[in-house]
């Protein structure tokens, strides 16, 4: 009798504990989120997602391409809407006539290309869906040069593992999370598997017109199959590097330094 009474009481309190868990959650989940070791456990899931998507996408399938009628009438612009600063204003005034795309780092043949030179290279046009990490989507048509083509021309050295895009915009004010404060300069990185994917473009046109300022004029990255924050705008320089350490906050991108996943396939 005593045994079961005690056990029933114990089970009863478990039930009560469940009912109270709504309150316990507040402190519990927040404390866990702040805990560095729990962050490491949760970070492991990013590796599982990346590894499994790499296996599923090993045949390099294309992201879905849409018809012209599917293009969003209004394509939301996010992040930097105008880079500001005298240098950029000067480029706008000159219609980006002296803008150059530098490709350097671990390459045998560094490149420096004007927009005119880029537009004379073979291009690819694709109508794809842009998915913001916040949850919204918009469909747009992009025209640009395949990054893989540029990397072939630059002759990437075997030690290179990542392509890092350095941009002209500066988003200050967002504090870094879980790492050193990185500068506000926008940058992004992808590995060479994504860099060489046929749909990965250095785009200069959107919906049949030169990129507008809010959407990244004059050059932006399109890396379909990943989220919006990977689609770096206002690109000036691409560096081929063996590691992401030592660049910005060391996590491979402006938002990555602020807690977001480096692999943004989900």
């Amino acid at each position, binding site marked *: *009798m005593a045994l*079961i009474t005690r056990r*029933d009481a114990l*089970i009863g309190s478990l039930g009560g504990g469940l009912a109270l868990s709504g309150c316990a959650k507040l402190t519990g989940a927040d404390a866990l989120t702040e805990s560095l070791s729990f962050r490491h456990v949760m970070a492991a899931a990013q590796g599982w997602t990346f590894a499994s998507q790499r296996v599923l996408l090993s045949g390099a399938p294309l992201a879905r391409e849409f018809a012209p009628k599917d293009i969003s009438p209004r394509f939301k612009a996010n992040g930097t809407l105008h880079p500001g600063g005298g240098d950029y204003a000067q480029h706008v005034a000159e219609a980006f006539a002296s803008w150059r795309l530098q490709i350097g780092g671990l390459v045998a043949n560094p490149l420096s290309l004007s927009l005119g030179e880029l537009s004379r290279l073979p291009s690819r046009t694709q109508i794809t869906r842009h998915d913001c990490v916040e949850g919204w989507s918009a469909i747009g048509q992009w025209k640009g040069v395949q990054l893989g083509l540029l990397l072939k021309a630059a002759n990437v050295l075997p030690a290179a593992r990542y392509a890092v895009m350095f941009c002209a915009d500066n988003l200050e004010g967002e504090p870094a999370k879980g790492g050193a404060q990185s500068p506000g300069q926008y940058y992004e990185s992808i590995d060479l598997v994504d860099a060489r994917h046929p749909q990965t473009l250095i785009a200069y046109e959107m919906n049949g017109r030169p990129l507008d300022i809010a959407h990244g004029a004059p050059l932006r990255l399109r890396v379909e199959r990943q989220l919006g924050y990977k689609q770096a705008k206002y690109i000036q320089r691409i560096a081929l590097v063996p590691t992401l350490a030592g660049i910005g906050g060391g996590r491979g991108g402006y938002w990555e330094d602020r807690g977001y996943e480096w692999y943004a396939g989900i």
Partner: protein
Amino acid sequence: MTTDTAAATAGQSAAPAHSPLSNRPREKIYRHTFLVRVTHWINALTVFLMIGSGLNIFNAHPRLFWGAAGSELDHPFLSITSTMTTRGMRGLTTIGPLRFDTTGFLGWSRVGSDWTSRAWPSWITVPSYQDLADARHWHFFFAWVLVVNGAAYLIWSLLVRHVQRDLWPTRGDIRSIPRSVLDHIQLKHPTGEAAKRYNVLQRLAYLGLIGILVGMVATGLTMSPGFDAFAPWLLDVFGGRQSARSLHFIFASLITAFIVVHLIEVVLAGPVNEIRSMITGRYVVPREH
């Protein structure tokens, strides 16, 4: 009223009643297998955290659309925002043409002592503070737990025929639906032999929950631009990425409804006996009247 558990061992064994109020034995059965019990509690914790972190993610763009694309420049069929009125800031929830003032809960709610513009309130989200990056870490970590745990449950349950035997309704079950509905409305719970098996509404509810959880994973994956390239047919199944996102939210609402009914039923059916059976496996069969 209670019996001596020392006399009851695993499996079906009747223990003598000690209570002078009754001279009939109380029958105990081994109701839930170890795997069902373990996966049940892991699933319960995981679903709880998935809903909380999912609502935090929802807060980053508190609008739902139908079709492939949609942003605040388009027309959502549901939105939870805050708006300035003559009475100050108010929480505004819209569903189609309907507008609801949801101040205090949805759209405009208190975080500590400060009023904040956020779709879902602080006390319901994981983490409690608004942070998309952290909420995504919670969501995608526990998504893996949910999938592995759920797959273990489903594969095992199919192999040992738990699904076929205990969950899949029989012809007799289907015929008894009207009666079972009536019993549930009258809060009459089965006793004796009938209490040893799931009734038809339980079977349909548990099968439905499994189906919705599968749908949750599928709509979740449809939101992944990477997974879409692997399985673009998912976009056609759900009518586009934004439709999949909306269905993800609707399915989560159905799961929440299941949890509410499930907990009410546990309380009505005898919480001690029910919760004990999901911890130790042993269940005291309610006596026939």
